Every structure is written in C-alpha cells, then in structure tokens.
C-alpha cells in the first residue's frame, strides 16, 4: 500500500476542492443565492476534513470542522450567508489552504499560523449557535479511550443489553456521525464492551472516505427500556442493520445473532467473543484446557466441546458458530481467494534483482562467445532463454488492469457533468488492458485533467448540442489497448472539437508562433500543451486556467510516452497517449555512433538498412524507402560526436506514434535485454536520452528516447531555419 501516493492524491484533491470552494464563495459574494452553492462549499470543507482525518492531519481537521459547522447551519438555513460571514469564510478557506500547504511540505504549523486560525474561529463564533460541537479529532481520542476501557471487564456480560449494529454505507454522506450515537448510548448507561467490526474495510485504493464501513458489537449495561435504546438509532434505522438483545435473553437470541452476522469471522472463539456470548478470559481459559486435555489424552479436544464443558456457553451457541465457521472454510476454496497479497516493495526488489541477472547474463553470453566452446554456448543460450522467461514472468507480477483507474472516472464524470449542467456519459473499453503498476499511479493526474477538460471545453451545453443535431447527452470514451510493446490510452469525446484557427490566433497573440508560419494540423494541436495557452473563452473553476495541459504533457513525457491529438470541429476530439508497458527493463538494440554505445528501444524499430543502399532525397536529410520519404537524424551530428567513416553508416528506421524516422548510426551490434538505470538529476535537461544501461562488458550505454530525439531534431531545425531567415533579412 502506498500511503504516500494516497497522501499526494489528498493534496491534489484538497487543492481542487479549495479552488472550487473559493469560486463558490465568490459566487455567493456576487449575489448568488443558490442553496447548491452553499452545499458545494459545505461538501468541499466536509471532504477535506474527512480526508485530512484519515491521514491524521489534526490541525486541518479541527479548524475545518468548525468552518463546516457554520456552513452546515447555513445549509439548514439557520443562518443566512451575508457579506459579513463571507468576509470571514474567504480567509478561512485561505487558512485551510495554508494548513494543507504546510502539511504537504511537512512543515509544522507555527504559532502565528495557529493564532490566525484561532482568530478566524473566534470571528466565526457568532454564527456557530449556542452549543458548538467540540472538535472531532478530540472526540475520537476521548471516545476511544472511554469505550475501550470497558474491554477489561471480567466475566460474561449476558446480564447486559447486547447491540449489534452494521451502519449503512451512506451514513456519513447523509451527515450522520456514528460516534454521536455511541455518545448517546453512554447517556443511557455504561458501555462495558465494544468491538469495532472492520471486516468490510476495502483495499486502500478502493477506500472511499465518504463511505462508512464500520459496524459495532456493543454491550450496554443500562436500565433504559428497549424503546429508549432503539430511539438512539432512530435516524439511522432505515439504512442500517440493528439488532438489540435484551438482558438475560434466551440463548437462542445469540444463536440467531451469530447466524445473521454478515462477517467472515475466522475462528469460533472470535465469533463468540465478538458477540460477547463469552469473554476473552473464558476463551483463554478454554484454550488452556484444550491444551491440557490434549496432553492428557494425546488428542486435541474440540474447542466447542470444551467451552460447553466449562459451561461458558450453551451448546446451541457453539453449534451455530461452528456452522458458520464451516461455511467460511467452504468459501475459502472459491477462486477469489487464490490471490496472495505481496508488499510492493518486495516485488520491486525482485524485479531489481532480475534486472541484475539480465545484465550478468549478457556478460556470460559475451564471455562464452569469446571462448568459442560450442557446448558452453549452447548451455548459456538455454540459460538465456530462461532468464528471459523469468524476466517476462516477473514483469507481469507488477501489471495491473487499467480498468480500476478508468472506473474512478465514472464518479468524476457524473459529479462534474452535474456541476456543469451537462449530460455526459462515460464509456469504457479495454478495461482489462494491463500496464505497470508504477505507471498507473502516475497516469491518474494527467487523465483526470484531460477528462475534465473534455467535459468542460469539449462537450457542449445541451442547447448547443440540440442546435447541432447531436444527442442531448455527450459521450466521453476511455479506451486502452496494447500495441507493439506499448499501451495506447485514448480519451475521446463527441464534443465541439478543437478550433485550429482559434488556437493559431491565440498562439500568435501570446507570441508562441509568428504570423505566417506554416504549421501542420498536428503541430497546431500540440500547441494546446503549451503553458499559457487555453482556448476556453470563459475561464471556469474546472479548467481553462491555461495551466494543466502543459503539465499533462510533461507527466506523459516523464513516463517516456507521447501524446497525439485528432480533432474535428463539431464532431469531437481524441487524444491518444502512448506509453511503454514498463519502465524497468526493456528490449533494446545496441548500436554505436562516434565512440558512444547507444540503445534504441526495440519496440520502436521497424527495420535496419544500409544507408548507402538507399536513394537520398536531393539536398535533404531524407531517404527514399520503398517509395516513402523517411527523414533521418544522424546521431553523430545531432550529438556533436567525433566524425567517423560515412561509408558504412546504417539507418535504423523507427516508428513512434504516426511518425516514422531514420536514426543514422555507425554500427549495429544486435538485440540486447537491458535494465534502465536513471541518469540522475544533473542530466535532466538532456533531451533524446531517456536513461542509461549497462552492457555485458560493464560499459555504460545510453538509451535513446526516440520521441524526444525527434522533437529535439525538429526544434533544432526550426531554430536553424529561423536563424537562416534572420540572416537573409539582415542582408536585405
């Protein structure tokens, strides 16, 4: 579980929420009276508080909690949101932003900061009503101390009320706090035992902080009537499952309870303890007796029998629990339990080790062919095949289907469409397509940005769609497929499409391009990735701030990927992101140019040809390959390497996305499996080289990043041409 990743998600989410909170507050300030706006602010505060609580960011929780209380009262129309209140709420929002920022940089909140917070809270007091609820973070700690103290209680509690409650998942969303119910129960009597049922907590990645997963088994010593206890659950009764067993109940009540428990409780003892039919002490005593008996009789006595013998529980209870245990065991053998959960770190370590194995195998290969012993070469080759198989198998361990990532967008699209007053459906295709886990995490943000952009700027409003004879509801389609060692992720919308002319104009106004410069459609589209260029006429709170698309492109490039756009006015826009399947180990092709070893990623290579066997297009770095013109880059030229012999040059024809190009090198050495080693921060600015790798000889080879290399060459050519035209102008 990568908590750091989740924390980063929280920061990103908090930033978005704070932005929308600010925008909504400003709308109120402009006279917006819509209840939904207040709701939006409330939700933002509520979500931030909830998520911050998960990470134990108590300063954020305690401050936001008070703000949320005020907003809640506004929501219930107990107070009106006036200019006075707004002028406090806006700084409150800013203060939350500061707290989040501090948490992000792991800075402690200093005294001035906390004092500011307190001043704001003091200013909020008039709006809080009489009894401002105390701060949640504190409640929780107090509460747990209070509740769990009871756990030391000695003998069986069959003299008390037993309450078994499984809260409905939407309880938190509906504004209910389970703790307030527990607090209320304490006013009725003493909670002597409480067990939190956590079985329904999902995997961390699937965890929805707004959803309630908990249940409780409570033993309450109280003189209250059944009605009074039931009343505690009045507001949650409908969606929750609540069973109340009165004191001194018939044993069958417990039998029923055990049978109705939804949990997968593992052991008989646990089930019994959980329902407080017995206590831990009784269980331990029973276990001890079991051991002794086993010694004495040489055979293990059944735990259930012992409990009955000890008169701790009635046989009926034991039988019910045994039944349940049996059922649980049966479930075990079903296919869903065939997965083993492994720490991601261990997996990474394994992959690293296999990387080393791959390098060493190259070395052995090299030595064997030097020695020229056929038996040895044969053995080494067969070992090599296994190494390759191990590598492939190991890499699949890290592969996860992209569907989970796509699925998250369902909610995003639904919520965002609502806030945009648009109707948008999300379609998903190729959810089973797998890619490296580490890449999935880094894909989230760029995808989120693109999808939001598509919803905000792409899909038109209903009235426009009707005028264009399109269905009211717009469609966004997320697709994924494998393509020659790459994964291609598509984001398609059937919206208004990109206006090439508008992009051109904006780019000229912003000084990105010169007037009269000819750019291809694709080049013009690519301009939207330029910082500062946003074609949205109206800046909305969702996007259109002109930041984002450049970050998207950078994120994708960091993953060694590329992004292409296809769009038609009035019909829609498609973005395709092309990424390598994994970053750790690649199949490469070893070449040399100048005196440097390079590796070309195998999945980009189409063919290798002798440069001199091809016809050159006159005066250009371009060859005629079976009738197609293929431009080429001479590595020696572009990297200013030592000049060499031109007569033996080879051209490696590569493809990246729709582009085809030649890389001219001095010598071809052949295929090689290689482990990507990062080059470190010093080389960050170097374009065209994506990393380094070790050859069998121990020498370092540089891995070419084809996409970067090509755009580097294009940029350089542009610069040179521009310099050329400047020269001409000067001469004139």
């Amino acid at each position: 579980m990568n908590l750091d990743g989740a924390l980063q998600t929280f920061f990103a989410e908090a930033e978005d929420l704070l932005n929308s909170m600010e925008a909504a507050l400003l709308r109120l300030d402009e006279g917006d009276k819509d209840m939904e706006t207040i709701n939006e602010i409330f939700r933002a505060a509520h979500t931030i508080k909830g998520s911050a609580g998960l990470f134990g960011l108590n300063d954020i929780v305690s401050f936001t909690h008070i703000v949320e209380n005020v907003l809640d009262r506004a929501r219930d129309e107990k107070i009106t949101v006036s200019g006075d209140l707004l002028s406090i709420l806006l700084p409150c929002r800013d203060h939350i932003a500061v707290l989040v920022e501090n948490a992000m940089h792991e800075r402690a909140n200093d005294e001035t900061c906390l004092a500011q917070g307190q001043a704001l809270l003091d200013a909020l007091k008039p709006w809080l009503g009489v009894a401002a609820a105390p701060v949640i973070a504190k409640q929780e700690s107090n509460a747990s101390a209070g509740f769990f103290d009871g756990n030391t209680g000695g003998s069986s509690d069959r003299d008390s009320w037993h309450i078994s409650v499984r809260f409905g998942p939407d309880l938190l969303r509906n504004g209910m706090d389970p703790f307030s119910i527990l607090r209320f129960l304490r006013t009725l009597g003493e909670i002597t035992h409480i067990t939190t049922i956590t079985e329904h907590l999902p995997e961390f990645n699937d965890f929805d902080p707004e959803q309630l997963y908990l249940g409780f088994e409570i033993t309450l010593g109280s003189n209250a009537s059944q009605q009074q206890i039931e009343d505690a659950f009045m507001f949650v009764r409908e969606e929750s499952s609540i069973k109340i067993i009165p004191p001194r109940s018939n044993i069958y009540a417990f039998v029923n309870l055990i049978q109705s428990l939804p949990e997968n409780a593992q052991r008989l003892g646990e089930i019994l303890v959980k329902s407080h039919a017995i206590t831990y002490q009784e269980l331990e005593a029973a276990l001890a007796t079991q051991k002794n008996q086993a010694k004495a009789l040489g055979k293990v006595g059944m735990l259930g029998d012992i409990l009955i013998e000890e008169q701790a529980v009635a046989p009926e209870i034991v039988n019910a629990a045994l039944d349940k245990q049996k059922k649980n065991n049966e479930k075990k053998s079903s296919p869903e339990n065939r997965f083993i959960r492994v720490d991601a770190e261990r997996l990474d370590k394994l992959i690293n080790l296999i990387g080393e194995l791959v390098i060493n195998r190259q070395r052995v290969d090299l030595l064997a062919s030097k020695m020229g012993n056929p038996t040895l070469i044969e053995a080494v080759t067969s070992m090599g095949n296994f190494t390759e198989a191990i590598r492939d198998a190991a890499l699949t361990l890290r592969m996860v289907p992209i569907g989970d990532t796509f699925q998250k967008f369902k909610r995003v699209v639904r919520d965002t469409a609502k806030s945009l007053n648009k109707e948008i459906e999300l379609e998903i295709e190729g959810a089973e397509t797998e890619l490296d886990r580490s890449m999935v995490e880094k894909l989230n943000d760029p995808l989120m940005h693109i999808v939001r952009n598509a919803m905000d700027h792409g899909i038109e409003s209903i009235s426009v769609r009707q005028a264009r004879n399109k269905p009211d509801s717009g469609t966004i389609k997320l697709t994924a497929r494998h393509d020659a060692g790459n994964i291609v992720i598509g984001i398609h919308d059937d919206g208004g499409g990109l206006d090439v002319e508008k992009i051109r104009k904006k780019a000229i106004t912003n000084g990105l391009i010169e007037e009269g410069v000819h750019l291809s459609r694709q080049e013009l589209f690519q301009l939207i990735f330029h910082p500062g260029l946003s074609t949205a006429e109206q800046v909305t709170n969702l996007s259109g701030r002109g930041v984002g698309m450049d970050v998207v492109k950078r994120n994708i490039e960091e993953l060694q990927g590329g992004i292409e756009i296809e769009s038609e006015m009035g019909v829609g826009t498609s973005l395709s992101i092309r990424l390598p399947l994994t970053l750790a180990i690649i199949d490469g092709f070893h070449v040399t140019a100048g005196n440097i070893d390079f590796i070309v990623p195998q999945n980009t290579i189409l063919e290798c040809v002798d440069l001199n066997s091809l016809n050159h297009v006159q005066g250009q770095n371009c060859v005629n390959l079976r009738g197609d013109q293929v431009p080429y880059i001479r590595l020696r030229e572009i990297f200013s390497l030592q000049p060499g012999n031109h007569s033996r040059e080879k051209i490696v024809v590569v493809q990246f996305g729709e582009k085809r190009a030649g890389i001219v090198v001095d010598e071809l050495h052949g295929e090689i499996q290689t482990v990507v080693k990062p080059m470190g921060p010093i080389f960050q600015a170097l374009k065209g080289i994506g990393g380094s790798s070790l050859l069998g000889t121990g020498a370092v080879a540089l891995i070419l990043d084809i996409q970067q290399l090509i755009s580097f060459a294009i940029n350089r050519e542009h610069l040179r041409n521009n310099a050329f035209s400047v020269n001409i102008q000067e001469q004139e």
Partner: protein
Amino acid sequence: MNQASKQKKTGSPEVIKQYLTFRIGNEHYGLELSQTREIIEYSGITEVPLMPNFLRGVINLRGEVVPVIDLAVRLGRKSIEVQKRTCIIVVELQNNEQNHVLGLLADAVSEVIEMDDENIEDAPSFGANIRAEFIQGIAKREDEFVVLLDANNALSIRELAHLVEAQLQ
C-alpha cells in the same frame, strides 16, 4: 562529524577532522574524508553527448551509473589530461535529503591528513582564483597550502544541472 561541529560551537579548541588530499595540476586540494566513499582507477568513462566540459561522462560503479566531474574545469582550471595516476574520487553528498553520488577526476590522490580547526584559515577574499564559496578553508602543511573544498557548494547538484541546461540551450 556533527559532534565535532557542536564542540566547536561550545568553544572547545580540539576539533580534528580528516581530509583526503589530492592534486590537480600543481595545486593541492582536500575534501572532508566523511564525504568521500572510495577512490577508483580511471577507466572506461562513457561520454555523454552535448555536455559542458566539466562533465566528463558516466561510469558504471558496481551497477550504479555515476556522473564524473572534471574538478579542474569546475574550479576554472585547464581540463585534466588522463595519465597513469589519474583517478576518480567517489563522493557522496546530501542534497534535499537525497544522496547523490559523483565521481571527481583528479590528477593524483595524495594522502589523508588530520587537521584541527586552529590550523585552518578562512578562505582569502581574493587571490585564490577560485569562487570563494567553493572553499571551506585553507590548510597550511609544511611549506604548501591545501585548499579544502566545500563539496556541497562546489558540487551543488542544482547548479551543475543548471549549467547543463544552459549548455543545451
């Protein structure tokens, strides 16, 4: 080391540090021994294209790819010519809570010396021909001076990366 600097603050005169000294051209330099990891023979540097002169390339240090800096160029001297005694001093620097490993090209490694702070003079404000912030102090040894380098400044990863970026533009 931390303890040593603490002692200095409390006024104790006995602060002895170890320095690895080496030669570049005719000049003697020193680095705090605690910042150095090992010394390796010069062999097999892979050149990285388009890099500024101070960045000689990368080496394979037991599976780790490590950049090699020509310290002479970095200090404003003439580039080091590889000879028999040329070696690479591997240093490990802490930067933004990350460890960075760098190789430094030197003409020859001399010895490890122990110096107490009393015998280390502050960097002269001029005349050393080296940027002042690269110098931690000057140690006097018999009849020669040893320039003790401030590795964190002289080899600041951020500055080196900026220089590379500037070179590429």
